[in-house]
């Protein structure tokens, strides 16, 4: 099942994050004999609120009834990827707090295949609330008729398929409509976005069935929205950052949680962000809530002490001071005694009289079918992998580079198009930009036989392959260049890097739809800074890697598409 392929990615990602000290930090506190450690894995969108609460809680040295001091260690992670990690048993937290309860029935369904009881059972309390919304730059929302007109998924689908993009609405200067949501196999908001699209496509608001998901009309609607997606991502917090850092030329709108809009507007109002105002669109067809359930797992690795400790931490989070702190970060408190006041207001882009309605959460099998629908309805990717096979790659480096590239190929769909270019003193095309399906087995075999030797002609090769992808790639597809190198360039024209940086800048004409460059600095001799300078302006990302974590890096890159 594809899902468990993604489970592997999830675990690899966790490793990558902990190795690289990435965005998903871990909060630890010293423990001693009379303490109990409660581990919490939580959805990344509540990191800004939760992290300071963990610090405060650990400093308070609160105790269980039995007198044991509770110490909390909390890790942020995409909600779906954490579920998959827990189901495999590789992640063993005391508490799981995904972004919403939607994925709990799926987790229970999978858990029960090997266990006699549910992973999450009994009543689970919500920590904080936020509706799933479409974040859109205010001028763009106004161009669509907001706020007089309540917008929805039908508007997004219409805009996505309008050949002229924003020109259709009299704003040619804004270019194409560029949309984004997270990867539905990693993140809760990606799942909810897909469910909302499936509901909108089937014309329903409740009772979504497997037949509805399989209906060609549903697929057509989903494909319409997906056609405007610039790329996906592993977490909602990441998407929010992308949108708010890079602005309207990069993304016109994205599926986020309301609280992220409040936080961005708060920054803008305080002069910490120069972007346009952003507003929350509450889809008129209905939406879902991120309710951030606090689930103490019914798993064999959770001890009674940890269960007691988890209850102490839960009570702390639900106490008024912590709930009031959540309000400051744009969350709607779970404590009904706390009113919905500033910053939950129009000045911060949100409307607390919304949402007017919700969509019914479908059964676990329908959720899984909707995830599968995404796999076949999403935009294909045209990707070129540029692999350094210079002499310095010998030994473990080339071996793990081969294996990780094979694994990366396994993550791509048959209809995705892949080109593989090897370079040392010169560049050689191992495989042209053609659909992966018919050539998958042959390509895997050829990759397994790659050998190293020669110098490093890095930037000339990247520039050439970038230009080739710009020429041969389909601009309707997600286009990406993945570059792996382990050494300084000693063969290229010095002007190549500057040219590459100039033409690949996502602030240019195509904005967020431009080719993304992902660079992997493999080992300590790789030109990390130079690679960063070509990756980040394109909307891609630079990674520092080694033979131990290269698989997880490739996996994270795959979450973009």
């Amino acid at each position, binding site marked *: 099942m594809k899902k468990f392929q993604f489970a592997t990615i999830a675990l690899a990602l966790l490793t990558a994050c902990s190795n690289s000290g990435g965005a998903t930090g871990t909060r630890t506190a010293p423990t001693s004999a009379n303490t109990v450690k409660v581990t919490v894995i939580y959805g990344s969108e509540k990191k800004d609120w939760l992290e300071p609460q963990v610090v405060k809680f650990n400093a308070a040295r609160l105790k269980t009834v039995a007198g044991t001091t509770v110490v909390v260690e909390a890790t942020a992670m995409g909600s779906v990827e954490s579920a998959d990690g827990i189901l495999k048993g590789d992640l063993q937290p005391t508490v799981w707090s995904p972004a919403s309860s939607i994925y709990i029935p799926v987790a229970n369904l999978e858990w029960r295949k090997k266990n006699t009881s549910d992973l999450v059972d009994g*009543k689970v309390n*919500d920590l904080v*609330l936020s*509706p799933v919304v479409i974040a859109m730059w205010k001028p763009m929302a106004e161009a669509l008729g907001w706020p007089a007109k*309540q917008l929805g998924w039908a508007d997004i689908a219409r805009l996505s398929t309008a050949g002229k993009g924003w020109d259709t609405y009299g704003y040619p200067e804004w270019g194409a409509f560029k949309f984004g949501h997270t990867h539905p196999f990693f993140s809760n908001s990606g799942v909810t976005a897909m469910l909302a699209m499936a509901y909108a496509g089937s014309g329903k*608001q*409740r009772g979504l069935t497997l037949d509805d998901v399989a209906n060609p009309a549903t697929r057509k609607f989903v494909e319409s929205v997906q056609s405007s997606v610039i790329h996906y991502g592993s977490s909602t917090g990441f998407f929010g950052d992308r949108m708010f850092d890079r602005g309207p030329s990069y993304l016109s709108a994205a599926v986020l949680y309301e609280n992220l809009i409040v936080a961005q507007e708060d920054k803008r109002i305080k002069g910490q962000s120069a972007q346009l105002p952003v507003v929350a669109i509450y889809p*008129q*067809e*209905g*939406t879902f*809530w991120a309710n951030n359930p606090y689930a103490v797992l019914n798993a064999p690795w959770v001890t009674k002490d940890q269960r007691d400790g988890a209850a102490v931490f839960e009570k702390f989070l639900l106490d008024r001071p912590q709930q009031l702190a959540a309000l400051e970060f744009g969350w*709607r408190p*779970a404590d*009904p*005694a*706390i*009113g*919905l006041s500033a910053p939950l207001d129009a000045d911060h882009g949100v409307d*607390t*009289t*919304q*949402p*007017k*309605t*919700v*969509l*019914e959460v479908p059964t676990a099998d329908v959720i899984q079918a909707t995830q599968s629908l995404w796999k076949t309805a999403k935009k294909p990717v045209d990707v070129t992998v540029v692999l350094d096979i210079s002499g310095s790659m010998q030994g473990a480096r080339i071996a793990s580079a081969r294996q990780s590239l094979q694994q990366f190929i396994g993550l791509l769909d048959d209809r995705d198009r892949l080109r593989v270019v090897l370079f040392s003193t010169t560049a050689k095309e191992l495989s042209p930009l053609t659909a992966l399906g018919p050539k998958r087995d042959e390509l895997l075999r050829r990759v397994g036989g790659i050998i190293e030797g020669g110098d490093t002609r890095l930037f000339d090769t990247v520039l050439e392959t970038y230009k080739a992808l710009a020429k041969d790639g389909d601009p309707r597809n997600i286009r990406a260049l993945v570059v792996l190198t382990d050494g300084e360039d000693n063969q290229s024209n010095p002007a190549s890097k500057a040219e590459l940086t100039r033409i690949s800048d996502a602030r240019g004409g195509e904005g967020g739809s431009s080719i993304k460059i992902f660079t992997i600095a493999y080992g300590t001799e790789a030109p990390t800074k130079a690679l960063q300078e070509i990756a980040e302006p394109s909307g891609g990302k630079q990674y520092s890697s080694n033979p131990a974590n290269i698989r997880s890096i490739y996996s994270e890159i795959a979450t973009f598409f």
Partner: protein
Amino acid sequence: MRLRGSKTYIMKSQRLLFVGIIAVAALFVGGLLLVRNFVPGANPTVTVTLLYSTEKEDWLKSMVPQFEASSFGRVNGHPIKVEMKKLGSREVYLSVLNGEEKPDIISPASMLQIAILEDESRKKFGTPLVTVADRNLCKPVVSTPLVFVGWRERVDTLWPSGPGPDAWKKLQTAMMDQRGWSAFGKPEWGYLKFSHTNPLLSNSGFQAIVLMAYDQTRKTSGLSSADILANKDFQTWFQGMEGNITQFGSSTGDMMKEMVTYGPSRFDMLALYESVAIEQATNAKNRYGDLRVYYPPATLVSDHPFCVLNASWVNTEHRDAAISFTNYLLGRPAQEAALLNHGFRPTSREVPLDQAGSPFIKFADLGLKIGLPPEVQLPPGDVLSTLLDFWTRTTKN
């Protein structure tokens, strides 16, 4: 010099002896008291355990410390400590019947559950664990009727003239209509989201389906199993209503809290207790606005009995302590607190509903009424079981 054998000497020595005995006795008693007060375990606490239905949680949590500190809070000189556990009303009696819980007192939402436990425990053990008719050991403490609670704009759209005699019928028709609120010109409200708690878990949901059954059979008493099993019209109607509810709550208090926490997007209207609506009235105003109580054409009242169990684990001291706790809850301070702070209707006639500070005055705009609609008769246990079984077959619970 005084002689030992003199009368004066004898009298004085007797007095001294008497004073000495009194002093020693006083010292003994005083010491005993000191020991009781300051030496742990010297004056053991009598712990009373209570299993109660969730909707009373806030009231009981505020009353217990006051009771323990009051003159009621002692039995045979020992301090009483109350330990409480909340469960759904059905779980309250089932857990006792199954032996999972061994409390001294149980307090489900209604005498209905006490009647079922009396019947079931008699069958199981030969002697009932509770007796409805024993007003020494089993006393209703506060009451509240089943009502509709909804967001005013939406309920007024559904029932422009209020919930008249055809309230349930109109509601069911709207629930069945796949156009949802679009049929009322309000497409932005989505599908109609009425709900109640799961009757297998919670008394208010149980009461809601009893009211539906009575309404559809056009009765207010004498509901029979045949009314449920041999009436195709009722069955179709009931399936239309319950089959279109997308989410049943597990507890009344939590469901009301959810309505207020999430606002109208989650629920348009619920059938639950007047008291929980009152309890959340202020919160609702501060979050999503105008919430209102609507009284159904006929209702059922939950009387919240406190019943001391006739069980081997309840000894005389526990029983006396439990009775003392119940009596405290029936006293004026606790009854007033139940009304003023938690929206319950007091059992004590000394506490009027229309007194100053009463929610029936304070929250008049909530639609509260002191006078109640007619009450339907509680059906016998076998009829209730038939209805529950039918509900289980009908819904996607």
